[in-house]
């Protein structure tokens, strides 16, 4: 390649407590190309995007924009250098119109006042450039999520963006909306700009991208290669790696003859699930696989009563159960839910480790006088800190000061302390380094061997195939199939991917 790349990352590294999120990553975005950035959850894709746009400051390495090395002090500096980003979550000002959202970073003024006719005119020009049919005067709240995404792209164009980073833009939009997005992406490419495209859907990557970079555990294992030279299976292998190969998967014989501990029968929920059926037996790990936005976490929420079940039945140990809150799930059915978002939902960052773990057992420690015995509380907490090998300096340490892996262990210890019989574990290893990940895998196997019924939610296919006894696949709030896990990665991944796209093809 002789052309100067519009954006180049050379040896970019970034560490967080306990995790090396980026480790010498190289990336070249050439003008007029659509570059796919692939990798599993936690591989470092989002960190890379944040490092490229001035959100994170890299510990080492350099960022070169059109031949000139740059150091971005903040996101505004990256925008000024012509690098735009559209995040997975929508980032619009809801009280503004479409036009105002497009020009808001540089409102056209005349005589010190905002020139409203110019606002509409320039916004309309941006939208026309993208061939998007939207009226700039429309309030942004009247738009669909996919349309807001287009508005964000238009905003990036308005500030003369040469490089556009799209973080999982198709994760939560429909097929038709994706097609329109790709028409816009194609236009940007034809216009000589560079697009970095993050996606988990390999089919659309092959259909629209020309170059590929794969991240795995923070390293760029495939660097700016022509996509056409790499076959689908090869890419998947590169993403997953065989680095977990050294982990010996125990031969577990999940019990078949016992009655399910947790059972969903034709369940429809207020979150939008329809006719979901699954069953988890004691001692068994049922994997619930699906892409981000498939409705897996929402199903967990419905089970613990955060969403309502409107039809069908939830059964615990064979008898119908109505759970209205996490507290009821715990106290009546000894069902625990280890949440997906540990920083906001799993741990109390500004509270001590003792309080974080003991919260589920206070009611049992407080019997009699109504006062919680500090000594017994410390006993319980210490036991689980030792058992899960949580690295802390003191039981009074704030949970927020622990590394991600240790925080996740605290989040799990909280539920183990309550001696559950059924455990729903939601994305346990996102953003966790490999070593802690293995510790988690061994722990989850052990819990299943001790007789817990475990529903494991993950969008990490390798993790699913390593851990689960059976894998149920969810797509668009419905179960599209269930596969007995033979722990053979190739056949399993093919089968699971087929189940995800079975539904998509029908539409």
């Amino acid at each position, binding site marked *: 390649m002789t052309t100067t790349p519009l954006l180049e990352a050379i040896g970019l590294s970034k560490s*967080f*407590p306990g995790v090396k999120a980026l480790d010498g990553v190289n990336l070249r975005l050439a003008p007029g190309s659509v570059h796919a950035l692939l990798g599993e959850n936690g591989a470092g894709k989002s960190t890379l995007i944040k490092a490229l746009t001035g959100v994170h400051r890299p510990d080492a390495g350099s960022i070169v924009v059109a031949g000139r090395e740059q150091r971005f002090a903040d996101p505004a500096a990256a925008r000024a250098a012509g690098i735009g980003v559209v995040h997975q979550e929508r980032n619009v000002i809801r009280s503004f119109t479409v036009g105002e959202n497009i020009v808001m970073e540089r409102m056209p003024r005349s005589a010190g006042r905002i020139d409203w006719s110019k606002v509409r005119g320039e916004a309309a020009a941006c939208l026309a450039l993208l061939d998007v049919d939207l009226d700039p005067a429309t309030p942004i709240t009247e738009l669909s999520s996919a349309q807001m995404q287009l508005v964000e792209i238009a905003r990036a164009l308005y500030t003369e963006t040469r490089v556009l980073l799209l973080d999982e833009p198709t994760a939560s939009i429909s097929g038709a909306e994706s097609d329109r997005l790709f028409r816009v992406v194609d236009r940007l490419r034809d216009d000589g700009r560079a697009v970095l495209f993050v996606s988990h859907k390999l089919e659309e990557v092959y259909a629209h991208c020309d170059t590929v970079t794969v991240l795995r555990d923070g390293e760029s294992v495939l660097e700016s290669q022509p996509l056409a030279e790499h076959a689908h299976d090869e890419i998947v292998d590169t993403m997953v790696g065989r680095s977990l190969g050294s982990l010996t998967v125990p031969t577990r014989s999940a019990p078949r003859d016992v009655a399910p501990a947790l059972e969903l029968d034709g369940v429809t929920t207020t979150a939008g699930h329809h006719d979901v059926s699954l069953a988890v037996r004691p001692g068994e790990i049922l994997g619930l696989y699906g892409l981000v936005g498939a409705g897996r976490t929402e199903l967990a929420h419905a089970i613990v009563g*955060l969403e309502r079940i409107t039809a069908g039945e939830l059964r615990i140990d064979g008898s119908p159960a109505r759970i209205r*809150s*996490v*507290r009821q*799930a*715990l*106290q009546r059915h000894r069902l625990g*839910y280890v*949440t997906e978002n540990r920083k*906001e*939902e*799993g*741990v*109390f*960052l*500004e*509270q*001590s480790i*003792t*309080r974080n773990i003991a*919260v*589920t057992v*206070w*009611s049992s*420690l*407080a019997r009699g006088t*109504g*006062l*919680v015995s*500090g000594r017994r509380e410390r006993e319980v907490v210490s036991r689980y800190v030792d058992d899960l090998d949580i690295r802390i*300096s*003191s*039981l*009074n*340490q*704030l949970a*927020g*000061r622990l590394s991600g892996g240790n925080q996740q262990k605290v989040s799990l210890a*909280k539920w183990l302390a309550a001696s559950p019989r059924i455990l729903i574990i939601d994305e346990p290893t996102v953003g966790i380094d490999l070593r802690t990940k293995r510790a988690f895998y061994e722990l989850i196997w052990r819990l299943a061997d001790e007789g817990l019924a475990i529903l494991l939610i993950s969008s990490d296919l390798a993790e699913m195939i390593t851990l689960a006894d059976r894998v149920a696949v969810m797509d668009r709030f419905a179960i599209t199939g269930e596969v007995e896990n033979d722990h053979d990665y190739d056949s399993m991944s093919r089968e699971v991917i087929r189940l995800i796209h079975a539904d998509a093809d029908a539409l």
Partner: protein
Amino acid sequence: MNEPGLLRRFVATPRFVLVVIIVLLVAVLVAVKPSFLNGTFVIAPLLTSIAVFTVVGLAQMMVLSIGHMNIAVGQMAAFGAMVSGITFDLAGWPLVAGIAAGLVAGAAIGALTGWIIARTGVNSFIVTLAMSFALLGLVPTIYSSLSAGSAFTTKPAGFDLLGRGSFADVCLVGWCGPAAIPLIVVPVALVMVLVAVLFTKTRVGRELLLTGASVKAAELSGIPTGRRIVLAHALSGALAALAGILLATSIGSFTPSIGDEFMLQSFVGPILGGTLLAGGYVSVVGTFLGITLTLVIRKGLELFGVGIETLNVLLGVILLVALSADRVREVRLRRGRTPDASGAATPEREEVAA
């Protein structure tokens, strides 16, 4: 994992700074105006107002624990005191029963407030502000329709002893206590102990703090957050009512203006004492010390003949300083999460709030 001793831990808290400032301030006041040590005319009234306003501070601290505010703390005090006044004046109830009625009324109005907040999800500032306006109209209306001269003046047995008595009234085998210490400090000390026990030893109190730390995480950890929100506001209402009743006993009658001065003070005490505005951390002793500091300053300026307007300016400045300190502490805590900030900067927060 060796825990530092109690004294060392106390020295590391903002409370210790307060104690030092208060001691220095009192020393300076005594040196410049020896009349500051006058038991009957300076110390006793000072301790009485410290006692009353400590309860006001605890009322606010109760909702701060869950990250809420109670703008209506003064009006809830007026409402609770009014109910007590009615039971004494119109029903002739004895002291304890009348006070209980006032506390129940305060708890009820607080619970209603909390229920509205939990149910609608509207910010506590807005709901308590609305409640404050409603009570601001309701209380004087009831006073003027039920009493002559807009005050309830009937005093049941023990009323004056509680509000104006001192340890000089308590005599054991011919030896009486000091006149400088009013009896009102006894129930207030008891309340402080109860609130401290609530937050440090009981499940419910700890659940209040976790609800304040993160409602979402609390709900997902099995804490009935809706009920905890109602409880925090109910206790806030009850404590506000207690403060109103205690103030009434010390001034000698129930009037609609009880609680007028409570709202600002209620924030200054807890925040100076280390309670986080964002919720999740409270300090009973800190609230007491924060209140003590502001009232010592007030008393000192009074002795120098400084007017009430200047006092209020000073109170505003103190509040601003306290709020900035709160913000600085929050920022430091947040930084503490990422160990790349200097590790020693953030001490581990001690478990015991009292």
